[in-house]
C-alpha cells in the first residue's frame, strides 16, 4: 500500500547525514569535493562518505522501483491524496499497519545488509596488503 514510504523516509535521513559527514570528512582531508577518498583505506578503512553512499543508493533505488510497482497496482496515483488507501478511512489503519510491519522490515533488511557489506569491505581492504605481501 505505502510500505516504500518508510524506506523513503530513511533515504531522506541518510542523504542528509551523508551530506553532513561528507562536509566533515572534506574538512579533515579524508575525502575531496567529489567524495573520492584521499586517505589509505587499507590503513584507515573505507570512508563513511562512500559507505553511506552505498546505503543511499540502495534505499533510493528500492524506493523508486517499489513506487513504480505501487503505481502499476494502482496503489499510488499522481493526484491527491496520492495513496488510494487514503480515500477509504477503513483502509488507513491497514496501510499504517503495513508500513509498520513490511515497510519497517524493508528498511531494516536493507540497513542490515548494508552494514554487513561495510564490515566485509573494510575487512577486505585491510587484508589486501598482507595478502599481496604473502604472494610476493
Amino acid at each position, binding site marked *: 500500500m505505502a510500505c516504500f514510504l518508510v524506506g523513503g523516509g530513511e533515504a531522506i535521513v541518510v542523504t542528509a547525514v551523508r551530506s553532513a559527514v561528507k562536509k566533515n570528512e572534506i574538512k579533515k582531508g579524508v575525502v575531496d569535493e567529489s567524495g573520492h577518498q584521499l586517505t589509505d583505506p587499507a590503513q584507515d578503512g573505507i570512508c563513511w562518505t562512500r559507505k553511506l553512499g552505498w546505503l543511499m543508493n540502495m534505499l*533510493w*533505488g*528500492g*524506493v*523508486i*522501483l517499489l513506487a513504480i510497482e505501487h503505481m502499476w497496482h494502482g496503489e499510488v496515483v499522481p493526484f491527491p491524496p496520492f495513496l488510494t488507501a487514503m480515500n477509504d478511512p477503513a483502509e488507513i489503519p491497514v496501510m499504517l499497519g503495513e508500513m509498520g510491519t*513490511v515497510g519497517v522490515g524493508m528498511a531494516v533488511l*536493507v540497513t542490515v*545488509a548494508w552494514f554487513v557489506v561495510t564490515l566485509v569491505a573494510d575487512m577486505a581492504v585491510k587484508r589486501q596488503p598482507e595478502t599481496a605481501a604473502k604472494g610476493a
Partner: protein
Amino acid sequence: MTLVITILAAAIATAVWYAKAPSTDMRLGTLALIYWGAALMWCVDGINGLIEGEGFIEITDTAAMLDDAVLGVVVVAAGLVAWAIYLVAKDPKRVLRKSLVS
C-alpha cells in the same frame, strides 16, 4: 517474478561492475545497488506473503505471473532510466561539460 527479474538484473549489473573494475566511470556499482536495494525490499514483501499464507513468489496463477513478469521488465527499465539520469547529472567522464563547452 518481479523479484526474480530484479535479482537477475542485480546479478548482471554486479558482474559487469566487477568486470569493469577498477574503472568507476560508468557508475555501474550504483546501478547494481539500485537493483539490490529493490530486490531486498521485495524479499520482505515475499516473506510477508508467506506469513499471510500466500506464496513467496506467485507461481499458481499464470495471468498474475505474466503481469508480474511484465512489471519486472518495467522495473528493470526504470532502474536503467534512474541510472542514466544519475550518470548525466554526475557526469563522471565530464562528457556533458565538454560537449556543452565545445
